[in-house]
């Protein structure tokens, strides 16, 4: 991602913004839910308190009515004012309502509960004390009314009511609502600020990683992302990315070394070739010298071609596509053919080249490449085994793998070299390899071929005892053994 794109990225699309948004929304929702719960809880408990107070009052009112049921209403009213006067505050009203006649009397001179038509509050047709909320048209606050039916002798049925003005309660609830809104506004503001700050803080390592990663290139592959070392996820991520960078650095180093080595390996024969051609162009040469120079040039040229082919093969193996032409064939035949091919050379060097324990194993592989693999191995073994030595080739089936061992009793390879023998251009003994014509690619080609087939190649060696190379290739399931040792000497 280019920095220009990053700059032009809107704040709205950042993780920081989205985290803040979520965080604020969640805070707001929980705050609102809490406020609603508290509001309803408060209003319910207030009403219940009012209700129980009213029920007590209405009962007392009723008992007075029952005691004085033969008195006139005016007397009763006076009595009630006398009896209950101490409780008559501005917010409590006692009323007596007839079933047909409407309001008989009210302790409040300005009773607002009575409508203009005199019908008054609704008459409840239930015996027990029942509480209802009335909203008179002329006031902004409601009344809580508790009604109880009373039967007055000779006068029929009446409702004794105690009404409570709810203005205080309503004011409390309104205050609570305002407070809630204010609290929610403050919570929103705080959560936005906290969200931005916290998200920014937790995402700061990401920002740092982005900045560092943006300028890591071929020139500074050794640089690493800063780690917080606090064991959190971003620290893990930085660690993993650092490991990846380390791998890339290592492989990049390998490629660089490979390229440098390849250039060196190509330059040397090129320089020699050029020298020879220049010498040949020198007219003081006689014809024999000419011929010899040209023949040597041809040899140099062949070396160059071979290195080019080897490099091409390795490059193709690295690219890993279209590399193999798979075929099913018997590996034993191939090994026998190769041993036959090299038997003359072995004979020439007075080395015993023997096939041991040949097992018929079919493999799905690229026959040409497999021949190349084993011819490289045989070539190596014969090159480094002194006259009178012995090279053996053995086969075995090993857990669905065809195993081929090429052993020699040559001088062996020192342990410090073993780990590197399959590296490109690695030479155990540079001087000797050069005289025998290798350029240090043979074994790495073997490894590339083996690995391209899903196989492995390993080498074990002991100084003055010998070297053993083991190649394992995926085998086809079919077993038949022929235990015929054949010697080519």
């Amino acid at each position, binding site marked *: 991602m280019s920095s220009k794109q990053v700059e032009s990225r809107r704040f709205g699309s950042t993780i920081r913004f989205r985290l803040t948004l979520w965080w604020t929304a969640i805070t707001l929702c929980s705050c609102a839910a809490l406020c609603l719960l508290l509001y309803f809880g408060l209003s319910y408990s207030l009403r219940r308190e009012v209700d129980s107070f009213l029920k007590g009052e209405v009962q007392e009112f009723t008992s007075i009515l029952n005691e004085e049921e033969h008195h006139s209403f005016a007397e009763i009213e006076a009595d009630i004012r006398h009896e209950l006067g101490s409780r008559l505050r501005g917010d409590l009203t006692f009323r007596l309502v007839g079933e047909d006649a409407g309001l008989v009397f009210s302790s409040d001179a300005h009773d607002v509960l009575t409508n203009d038509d005199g019908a008054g509050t609704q008459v409840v047709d239930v015996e027990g004390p029942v509480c209802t909320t009335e909203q008179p048209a002329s006031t902004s606050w409601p009344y809580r009314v508790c009604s109880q039916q009373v039967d007055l002798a000779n006068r029929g049925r009446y409702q004794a009511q105690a009404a409570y003005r709810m203005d205080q309660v309503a004011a409390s609830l309104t205050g609570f609502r305002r407070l809630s809104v204010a609290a929610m506004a403050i919570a929103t503001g705080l959560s936005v600020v906290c969200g931005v700050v916290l998200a920014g803080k937790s995402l700061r390592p990401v920002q740092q990683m982005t900045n560092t990663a943006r300028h890591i290139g071929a020139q500074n592959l050794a640089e690493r992302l800063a780690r917080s070392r606090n064991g959190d996820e971003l620290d893990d991520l930085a660690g993993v990315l650092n490991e990846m960078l380390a791998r890339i650095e290592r492989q990049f180093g390998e490629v660089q070394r490979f390229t440098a080595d390849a250039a060196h390996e190509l330059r040397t024969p090129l320089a020699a070739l050029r020298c020879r051609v220049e010498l040949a162009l020198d007219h003081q040469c006689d014809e024999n010298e000419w011929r010899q120079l040209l*023949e040597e040039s*041809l*040899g140099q*040229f062949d070396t160059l*071609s*071979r290195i080019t*082919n080897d490099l*091409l093969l390795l490059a*193709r193996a690295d690219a890993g596509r*279209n590399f193999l*032409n798979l075929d099913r064939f018997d590996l034993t035949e191939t090994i026998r*053919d*190769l041993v*036959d*091919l*090299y038997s*003359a*050379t072995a*004979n*020439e060097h007075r080395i015993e080249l023997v096939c041991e324990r040949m097992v018929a194993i079919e493999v799905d592989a*690229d*026959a*040409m*490449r497999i*021949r*190349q693999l084993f*011819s*490289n191995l045989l*070539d190596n073994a*014969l*090159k480094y085994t002194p006259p009178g030595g012995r090279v053996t080739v053995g086969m075995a089936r090993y857990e669905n793998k065809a195993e081929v061992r090429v052993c020699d009793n040559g001088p062996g390879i020192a342990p410090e070299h073993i780990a590197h023998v399959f590296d490109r251009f690695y030479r155990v003994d540079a001087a000797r390899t050069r005289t025998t*014509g*290798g350029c240090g690619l*043979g074994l790495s080609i073997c490894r590339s071929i083996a690995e391209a087939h899903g196989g492995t190649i390993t080498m074990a060696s002991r100084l003055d005892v010998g070297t053993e190379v083991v190649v394992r290739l995926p085998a086809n399931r079919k077993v038949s053994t022929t235990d015929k040792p054949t010697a080519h000497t």
Partner: protein
Amino acid sequence: MRALVVEDDRDVAALIERGLQEALFAVDKAGDGETGLHLACSAQYDVIVLDLMLPKCDGLSVLRAMRGRGITTPVICLTARDAIDDRVRGLNAGADDYLVKPFSFVELLARVRAVLRRGPTQIDNPIVVGDLAVDVIAHTVERAGQKIELTAREFSLLEYLARHAGEVVSRTMILERIWDMNHDPQTNVVDVHINRLRRKVDSNFDAPLIRTVRGTGYVLQAG
């Protein structure tokens, strides 16, 4: 003999032309696939040397088009790409042989001669080269009336040389035909086999039959 060289690199084309002319071929050149196909269809050639990487129309398409029109002239493909891949595709498309760049001209000439010899020519049995007689049916070899004992592999090697008597066969051709090897091992494995064969065929006689062509290969020739 008339040869067509289809090759876009002028240097390479000129070198092949010069070499083939020295070998007494009449040579036509084409610098791209279309011209090559046009020439191959309009004139009678004995052999066609065809580069696979060509402008306008690549070598494999030229080859398929040619074979599609019933032209059976032997074709040798030249390729700078991966040997095996192109070999398989080239041979599938109807090529008679192939050669990987960089190649030696002597080897190209050897392969040209080999494909010219292939086909209708019937080989007599036994094949006689000077005082050497190779019986390819009975698998026996005699020189000046003396029987020579050869291993199976030595016999195939000698038979191959005898079938191409008088022609140069390169080390890679020998590796391909006798050991089915498609790459050149770095050591001189073929030379060692030839030397062993020489010891049996030539060492007890005055005139050597197997001669080395330096830098290229071998030739079996009398006199």
